[in-house]
């Protein structure tokens, strides 16, 4: 029984590649669906995503009230200030799980945000019966900055994927790089889809979470590829699909153990990290599961697709040239 490693099967022999057609079809469908969810309705800049003020611009005010807050009165006070798109809602905190005493408001302050925020705060102080100290969080992002942050975020995602392609190309071969990049796009698209479906906030920290997922997914893919490359050298006569199956099976215990560890640790973060980290950790947990799946079912089968199911002579020749150099 213990340690756990004793009850894990010593040698697995799953035929991953055989299922890759179905997995591929499901993945393509999900990716298209996710893209659709993330883009539709195509309102700039965020489409179907629930953009935070980081990317949309605007103001976020959070404050706590001594008793249950009258959200209606606060909403009216905001409307009276003539701000655009006002939203008022209660939110839960560890000491106030019902969310009755903590209020979050968002609005577009229009011209001269700095001054408008002061006026709105004064109006809220009056109706909610609180003073200036009650405001726990004030965030104002001007339109210029938000559009810069948005393009910056998108560029960061593309740059990360591009650099990964170069890295894998350099360390392995082009088809490995392509497989890895397709897997990365798969993960990123599906993550966007999940963010859209569950209406999670899309903000700067979300981009950080996605970048981390990219890092993790790559990490996972590299481990499989490493074994794949090694096995390609070791079993020169074995058909490609068998080598892929073998490599995935050989690295499976590691994949499962590492993925589980990461998910367990992030689960703690989601449960105990509070409101601010909840969305972040949920996205990462989802992404890690995805990254594990995609390195098995997306990245490796792409290489098979590239090779047309057979190991071409030139591929083998290339491997042999690479061999001594990387072994040295």
């Amino acid at each position: 029984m213990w340690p756990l490693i004793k009850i894990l099967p010593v040698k697995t022999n799953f035929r991953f590649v055989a299922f890759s057609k179905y997995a591929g079809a499901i993945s393509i469908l999900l990716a298209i669906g996710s893209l659709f969810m993330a883009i539709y309705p195509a309102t700039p800049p965020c489409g179907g995503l629930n953009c935070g003020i980081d990317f949309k611009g605007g103001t976020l005010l959070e404050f706590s009230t001594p008793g249950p807050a009258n959200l209606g009165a606060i909403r009216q006070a905001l409307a009276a200030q003539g701000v655009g798109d006002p939203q008022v809602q209660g939110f839960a905190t560890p000491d106030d799980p019902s969310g009755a005493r903590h209020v979050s408001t968002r609005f577009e302050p229009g011209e001269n945000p700095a001054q408008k925020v002061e006026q709105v705060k004064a109006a809220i102080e009056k109706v909610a019966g609180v003073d200036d100290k009650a405001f726990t969080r004030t965030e104002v992002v001007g339109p210029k900055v938000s559009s810069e942050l948005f393009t910056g975020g998108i560029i960061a995602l593309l740059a990360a994927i591009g650099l990964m392609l170069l890295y894998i190309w350099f360390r392995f071969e082009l088809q490995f790089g392509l497989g890895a990049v397709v897997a990365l796009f798969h993960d990123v698209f599906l993550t966007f889809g999940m963010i859209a479906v569950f209406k999670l906030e899309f903000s700067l920290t979300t981009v950080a979470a996605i970048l981390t997922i990219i890092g993790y997914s790559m990490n996972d893919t590299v481990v499989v590829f490493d074994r794949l490359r090694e096995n390609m050298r070791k079993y020169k006569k074995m058909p490609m699909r068998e080598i892929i199956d073998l490599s995935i099976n050989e690295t499976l215990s590691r994949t499962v153990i590492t993925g589980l560890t990461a998910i367990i640790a992030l689960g703690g973060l989601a449960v105990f990290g509070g409101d601010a980290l909840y969305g972040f950790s949920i996205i990462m947990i989802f992404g890690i599961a995805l990254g594990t799946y995609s390195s098995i079912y997306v990245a490796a089968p792409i290489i098979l697709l590239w090779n047309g199911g057979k190991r071409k002579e030139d591929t083998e020749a290339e491997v042999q040239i690479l061999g001594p150099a990387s072994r040295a």
Partner: protein
Amino acid sequence: MMQLSRWKIIVVVATVLFGLLFALPNVLPANVRAGMPGFLPKSTLNLGLDLQGGSYLLLEVDTTALQKEKLNNLSEEVRRILGNAGTPPQGVSQDGKSVIVLMPADKAQAAFVELSKQAPSPTRAGTADINVSRQGDQAIRLTYTDTAISETASGAVEQSIEIVRRRIDELGTKEPSITRQGTNRIVVQAPGESDPEKLKNIIGKTARLTFQMVNDDPDDNRAAGEGAIPPGSEVLPQKGGGALLLRKRIEVSGDMLTHAGVGTNQNGQTVVTFRLNGEGAKRFAAVTQKNIGKPFAIVLDGVVQSAPNIQSAITGGSGEITGNYTIQTANEMSILLNAGALPAPLNVEEQRTVGAELGADAVKAGQLSTTVGFVSILVFMLLTYGLLFGGVSIIALLVNAMLIVGAMSLTQATLTLPGIAGLILTLAVAVDANVLIYERMRDEVRAGRPLLASMDAGFSRAMVTIIDANLTTLIAAAIMFSAGAGPVRGFAWTLSIGVFTSVFSAVLITQVLLAVWYRTARPKTLPIA
């Protein structure tokens, strides 16, 4: 690999000791830290604004306004030069980059010669700030060169930073950080300052003080009332309502101020007192002497503060500004005046403030979730690989955590809320290196290799994968660091430090511990096989 070389042990022991040394201040109480001898490191983790509370402001220097103002000044200057030369212009207009002077056709050449002689006020030898050119029969165009424009803008940003710094220092904010970002932005970070409005108020005011004569000519005032403001005059709002017609010419300006303070006048009102430098005092004396009995306006940021009649010549170079001040507003105003005027308006582009209480909550939540995450990883590793190998990876993980804390304290990298998530993820992924090594060893043993060779191969083969896997994380972190802002950078930094410490501890610490185990226990089989 199981042959322990001496340098490996030295490196491991030294690193662990250093890590301990730099991580330790974080768990010591503040009074113990203060009492430690000077050569010991005292710095603790540098918490970001989202964890300790505070304000972040991103300000942009309004260089367009600055340029417009320079053109306004140039227009006035052109009028003055041509007026003195006896060839007043028919019209002076601006088109955003240049001033266009319209002259009667017969005077245009003379005016062109006069302006070309006067205009280039060179800041550097051989180059002119202003290009003067003829356009057609009547028009003369004066354009600031691109170099002059960008130098003015850059100088304005530098000057603004200095003035913002002085104002914040006067407020008594502790450890503010004021840095330049890009070409025309300023980032102000004030930890612990949870009253952003006060901060914004004091930073955002241009605080340009001018003394101008009131235009009390009845004809001019009637014209202005009908919307035809006479050239050389302007209408400015008055504090408390209304507006006044003033002469544009600035007689004395705030940059001639040497000191401002708060005082009370003979009527018991709170006033802002000021003292001028020699040049200012001379000009103040000349103006007041010439205009006894006439109203004189004191203007701050385009608003007339007060416009008293001049009773007598003021020769001492000091005076006072009245205008319904409370002690507090008078005090704020003297802070502004003492720090000097901003060369251009500052616009708040981004503001993030977190209350100290919320920050403390976040720290608590972070500590709890880190502990939960950490302990669950430890338990999981112990369950998976048993007492010996699980224990070894746990020790590696503990060393890793200590090294991260030490490295972050040493580099004073900012720990942010997302950074805590980065920390947990790093710890979770750190066991990956251990898992890779262990799984590799099991493979080798199963392939029939002898124990020692299997363990050696486990390390050397896994090493390639570990480096590949961690380099990719490092790439992602580097991109986050260069493209991200604020909290995201903190996350990226934590992640990068974690990559290095986890490779070190998973590979070297594990290797040393397993080597010691191998030497002492002389095992025949791999316990995890």
